[in-house]
């Protein structure tokens, strides 16, 4: 028989579970023969792999790399003028071309290939639930939008609207970067009474955002601003959620006016 909690047991084995939650898993493992066997397998696999001889970079390769970096650094200092690409070897151009073609192919794949089911909803759901586990909620803790917003510049591929709505009952508590929709998306975290609201944002690739929906009891509201897609996820009621969405949309509109 296969235990449904195997992924959790694996996460426990990998040290991804907080001490408080780990106690519960240990109790489960004590009673579940399947998970006990799994833990033993995981330990053996890990020991075997970590016991393998691992090779370090050969000295000759290391020397070659250092030399090429020195050349690159020297070239960068000497060419203070324009057209830096002229000094680069041909294969770099070829390499860039190949990378460009590959990217174009991937883009075509993602835009042309019809979505099967909607993995996006599952990803958002998973990310929200995981964020509620201890210490996974925020990477940058701050109630100051001027701290959270610049933080995204270094950690996410998008720059969403960030504002504190504490007077209206939605306190900005921080931000986090999460991977889904094939990019580093930005998550802004709000506290509303006892509820946590995750506001996800990602570049939309001109695909329509899904309709608002409920998954596992969590409500998800979608909207878009320009080429950015947003989704607010929480266990609050629809009214509370849409009030925050409304505030965020107003804030986006204000940002846009200011920048014009």
């Amino acid at each position, binding site marked *: 028989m296969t235990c449904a909690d195997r992924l959790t047991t694996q996460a426990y084995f990998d040290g991804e579970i907080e001490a408080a939650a780990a106690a519960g898993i240990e109790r489960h493992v004590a009673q579940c023969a399947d998970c006990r066997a799994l833990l033993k397998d995981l330990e053996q696999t890990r020991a075997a792999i970590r*016991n393998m001889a691992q090779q370090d970079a050969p000295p000759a390769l290391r020397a070659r790399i250092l030399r090429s970096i020195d050349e690159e650094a020297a070239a960068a200092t000497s060419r203070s003028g324009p057209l830096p690409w002229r000094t680069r070897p041909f294969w770099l151009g070829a390499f860039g071309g190949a*990378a460009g073609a590959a990217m174009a192919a991937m883009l075509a794949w993602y835009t042309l290939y019809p979505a099967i089911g909607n993995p996006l909803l599952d990803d958002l759901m998973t990310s929200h639930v995981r964020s509620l586990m201890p210490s996974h909620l925020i990477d940058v803790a701050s109630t100051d939008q001027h701290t959270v917003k610049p933080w995204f510049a270094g950690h996410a591929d998008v720059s969403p609207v960030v504002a504190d709505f504490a007077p209206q009952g939605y306190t900005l508590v921080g931000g986090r970067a999460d991977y889904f929709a094939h990019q580093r998306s930005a998550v802004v975290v709000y506290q509303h009474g006892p509820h946590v609201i995750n506001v996800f944002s990602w570049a939309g690739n001109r695909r329509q955002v899904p309709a608002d929906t409920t998954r596992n009891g969590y409500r998800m509201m979608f909207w878009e601003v320009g080429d950015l897609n947003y989704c607010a996820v929480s266990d609050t009621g629809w009214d509370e959620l849409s009030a925050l969405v409304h505030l965020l949309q107003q804030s986006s509109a204000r940002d846009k006016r200011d920048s014009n």
Partner: protein
Amino acid sequence: MDDKRGRFEAQVLPHLDAAYRFARWLSHSSADADDVVQEAMLRAFRSFDSLRGSDAKSWLLTIVRNCNATAHRRQQRRAWVPLPEEHDVEDGHAMIASTPDPEIVSMCAEQERTLTRLMAALPEDHREVLVLREIEDMDYRQIANITNVPIGTVMSRLARARAGLKSQWLKDVEGELRDVR
């Protein structure tokens, strides 16, 4: 400019061995791995300014992975047969390493070669998460960042990689026993 070189040496160069190991597991031959690592290091140096603080190792491994994917597509190689090269495994290494599990202590060079072959035969997206977790000791979030998939996918790929490796290992051992008989 020299400052950039110095910072690169302090922050990125310590991860060269990790980059090399990862490239070895991703690419098809040690020569390919050399090329991939060299390209990756040069690219890393050029875009070093985009590494803002944080996690240099994840950042470098992401570049290695991208370089490998590009090289792979460029070459459109024939299907590869993963055969560990002779010098890959130093005989006796496994005997020296200490581990509490007696089953593992007795792992000989032959078994190490088998394990290398089985890992190389895993689907690439399974193999890379396994290598990042077990050999590079990255956490789920870092693996998700490097491989560009959600954490849930990392978890399920890791589970499948580990289960696949174990079942192949058992099959292999049984096969050997049959051969002996």
